[in-house]
């Protein structure tokens, strides 16, 4: 029997009086592909922020690969092998797409001052082939700030994938992308992550995308986990249909 790669125990976060997350206990096995659903304000981003160390939980514990990582900062969780992309793409706007990838490579490996040049032909090759995998090669020399939102999100995900992290959290990878582009976007983002063996949690509002790409769903509602399990079961759950998916889908 294998231990979970990642687990949270009774995770809680309050902002002043607002309870943004409460009693979140989740076990994630290595290789799972999990969709997190929930209406706006349900606490999905807060959960990702706690797991990655941007927010310190008010209570509870986070374990990764058997180690307690509660209270680590984003740099430390990144070094431990947890990476994320953002609801609003976070890229280095003044740099080219290739430079963004180079920074991602250097930041993961070469943070200390040294006499060695950081941008080597080998690193450029690695960055280019990473861009290739995410279908971004053709825009390698375009400044990231000039890209449309969808492409910027793809770059954000490609940067999160640098260094083959074991757990990748994608915060609404398809929001801000037109409906007919969502599937193509997920295809290009998920395939290389899968190939690297990463465990994936993605936040998603489109149930068609969830059905197609997730093998497990966790539904958030008002900071708590409303349902957690098999995709078909959770999406048919009465409470999930009522509180999360809404009547328009019924």
């Amino acid at each position: 029997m294998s231990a979970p790669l990642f687990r949270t125990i009774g995770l809680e976060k309050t902002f002043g009086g607002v309870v943004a997350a409460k009693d979140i206990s989740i076990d994630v096995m290595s290789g799972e592909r999990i969709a997190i659903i929930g209406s706006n304000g349900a606490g999905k981003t807060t959960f990702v922020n706690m797991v990655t160390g941007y927010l310190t939980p008010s209570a509870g514990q986070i374990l990764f690969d058997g180690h307690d990582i509660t209270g680590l900062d984003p740099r430390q969780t990144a070094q431990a092998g947890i990476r994320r992309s953002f609801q609003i793409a976070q890229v280095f706007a003044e740099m080219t797409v290739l430079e963004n990838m180079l920074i991602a490579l250097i930041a993961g490996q070469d943070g200390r001052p040294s006499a060695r040049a950081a941008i080597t032909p080998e690193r450029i090759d690695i960055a280019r082939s990473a861009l290739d995998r995410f279908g971004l090669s053709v825009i390698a020399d375009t400044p990231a700030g000039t890209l449309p939102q969808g492409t910027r999100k793809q770059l954000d995900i490609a940067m999160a994938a640098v260094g083959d992290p074991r757990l990748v959290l994608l915060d609404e990878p398809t929001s801000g992308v037109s409906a007919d582009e969502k599937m193509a976007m997920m295809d290009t983002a998920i395939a290389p992550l899968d190939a690297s063996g990463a465990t994936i949690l993605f936040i998603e509002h489109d149930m068609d995308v969830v059905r197609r790409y997730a093998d497990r769903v966790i539904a958030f509602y008002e900071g708590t986990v409303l349902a957690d399990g098999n995709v078909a079961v959770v999406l048919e759950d009465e409470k999930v249909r009522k509180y999360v998916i809404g009547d328009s889908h019924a």
Partner: protein
Amino acid sequence: MMPTLDFRRDHLFVAVLALLVIVGFFLPSWMRFLIQTAMASGLVALGVMLQMRAGLVSFGQGLFFCIGGYAVGLLAAKAGITDVALLLPAAALAALVIGLVLGLLLSRYREIFYAMLTLAVSMILYGLLVKAASLGSTDGFNIPAVSYFGFVPDQAARPDWSYALTGVVVLAGCLGALAYLRSGAGAMLDAVRENEIRLSYLGTSPRVLVFVVYAVAAVLSGLGGGLWAISSGHVDPEMTYWTTSGQFVFVALLAGRGSVVAPVMAYFLLELLRTYALDIAPNAWQLILGSAMLAVIVLLPRGLWSLVARART
């Protein structure tokens, strides 16, 4: 491609600077002295420029210029140590130690808080030096002639030696800054300016990067101050006064962030402009300076170096 991070060809520009330094050796002595002090001060402006790459404006870089200058001055005038082989390392070391200590505090701050804190610390030193009667208060003090690895040049040859020393150390400083910018810690400075949160999430601490750039800039500025003290044979608290620091910022802005030689060359241009402007229109100097700054900011937001960079591509 790679307009911001590509320093692979900057060695070429350091070589050009080296040639100019050699040419300068044969220029009239007033002009050569201008180049010499501009190079020493340019090293400080280079320190300001490195911090600007991280989006941070040090309005108190005169602090380290002054520390380097006074380290040399105190050792030479008060402790009888007059060889450059000890004086310059002492200037760099004094600046480094203070830089590391202050860096622990300053690396937490950004934007206007960083600018104001650097300014505040430099003005504290100014206040202390002005109060120190034994160090000549606002007048400062003179520094005896120095020796070069045991060799004492005669009076007539001294300017040649101090010019050569300044040229060599400034070129070495530029090469050091270049190696730093090409290293991981230097390459990520732009990322600190643009998006610290993204950078942390990629596994690097922006705070450590800021700490390092502050210390690197401190060493360069300390060396610049030491060279300036040796060149002019005099130090005074004006070295850490806010107008001096402001001039380093001015030059770094004028120069742009595109090359390690840009601040050194821009400092020389500024000194040249000042010399001629004072000659031609003694009362309009500030006006000319202000107009030049305005023109550069409006027309060349990436500084004078963008003209060179544009010609390259």
